[in-house]
């Protein structure tokens, strides 16, 4: 498993990275943990931008994923998880040098009632769609996002499906003629 003495592409040993991020987070820091898969830091949304900037300085340049979780009925209920990898550039064709790359996870816990998180879309173009998806499925707003609208569900969909208080079968089960965006029941001639 990862060797803290010579991590590839990361300019400081991993424990220093966590310490540096804790400092960058300041008051929004909640806790940090070293899980089996990677280190993680839990924080509030206001500390996200400084922490992410610090992460980028440390060499974590590849945003792998932004995901959402709803922990209802626990509080804080929404968790937005960011997973980063430190990807080296240049001629990296020798896979023996790309072993055990470092990863890092941030878990951001916004407000329960009106969840707002700053957007990563300015820093990484790849963050555009995951944030739209989290807005679509959880209702978390991303402040500063250029085009925050639904991604996977139809534009006029009501409710946020992946929240725990949204029923599995949806709010309006049952066929409604003329509903569902214009799909109409079949009329069979002859």
């Amino acid at each position, binding site marked *: 498993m990862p060797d803290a003495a010579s991590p590839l592409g990361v300019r400081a040993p991993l424990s220093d990275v966590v310490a540096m991020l804790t400092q960058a987070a300041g008051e929004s820091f909640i806790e940090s943990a070293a899980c089996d898969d990677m280190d993680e830091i839990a924080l509030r949304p206001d500390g996200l931008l400084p922490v992410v900037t610090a992460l980028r300085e440390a060499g974590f340049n590849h945003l792998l994923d932004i995901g959402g979780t709803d922990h209802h009925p626990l509080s804080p209920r929404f968790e937005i998880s960011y997973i980063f990898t430190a990807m080296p550039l240049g001629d990296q064709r020798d896979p023996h040098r790309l072993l055990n790359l470092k990863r890092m996870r941030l878990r951001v816990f916004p407000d329960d009632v009106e969840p707002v998180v700053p957007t990563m879309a300015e820093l990484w173009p790849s963050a555009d769609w995951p944030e739209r998806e989290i807005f679509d499925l959880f209702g978390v707003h991303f402040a500063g996002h250029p085009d925050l609208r639904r991604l996977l569900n*139809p534009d006029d969909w009501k409710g946020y*499906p992946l929240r725990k208080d949204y029923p*599995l*079968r*949806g709010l309006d089960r049952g066929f409604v003629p003329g509903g569902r965006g214009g*799909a109409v029941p*079949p009329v069979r001639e002859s």
Partner: protein
Amino acid sequence: MAVTQDQPFVLTKLDEFLKWAQSSAIWPMTMGLACCAIEMMSIVSPRYDTARFGAEVFRSSPRQSDLMIVSGRVSNKMAPVLRQLYEQMPDPKWVISMGACASTGGVFDNYAITPADTFLPIDIYVPGCPPSPDALIYALMQLRREIRAGSKAQVLAENA
């Protein structure tokens, strides 16, 4: 098709000819939604070869196709699109609902998936997840029998 008393001989023969022509060259539309689409592509592969039935020409344009094979799960956003495509197809047209998801919702009993028969008239339902290409070819054969016989009831009557 039996000669009935109130239909002249020539028109009956013409009718038979038309039904033979329609059933021998059913052109499906490239309506591939999900996993079933891969099995639908496999029916033109060398092993299952629908070219022998005249059905290997998948037309992309609904205006040029006879058969819509709803191959895959139908989500809320896609349902109106499917309805519009169905309305764009010229008569005579048929619809095969391929797979469990298109027929009844399948494995997915949730807010996002709707069965195809809530907004399309379906001629043949094919069970399976995904149905093997053999099953789809069987459905195609069944459709051909239906076309030649005139209707589903006629097929059942003939096979009773």
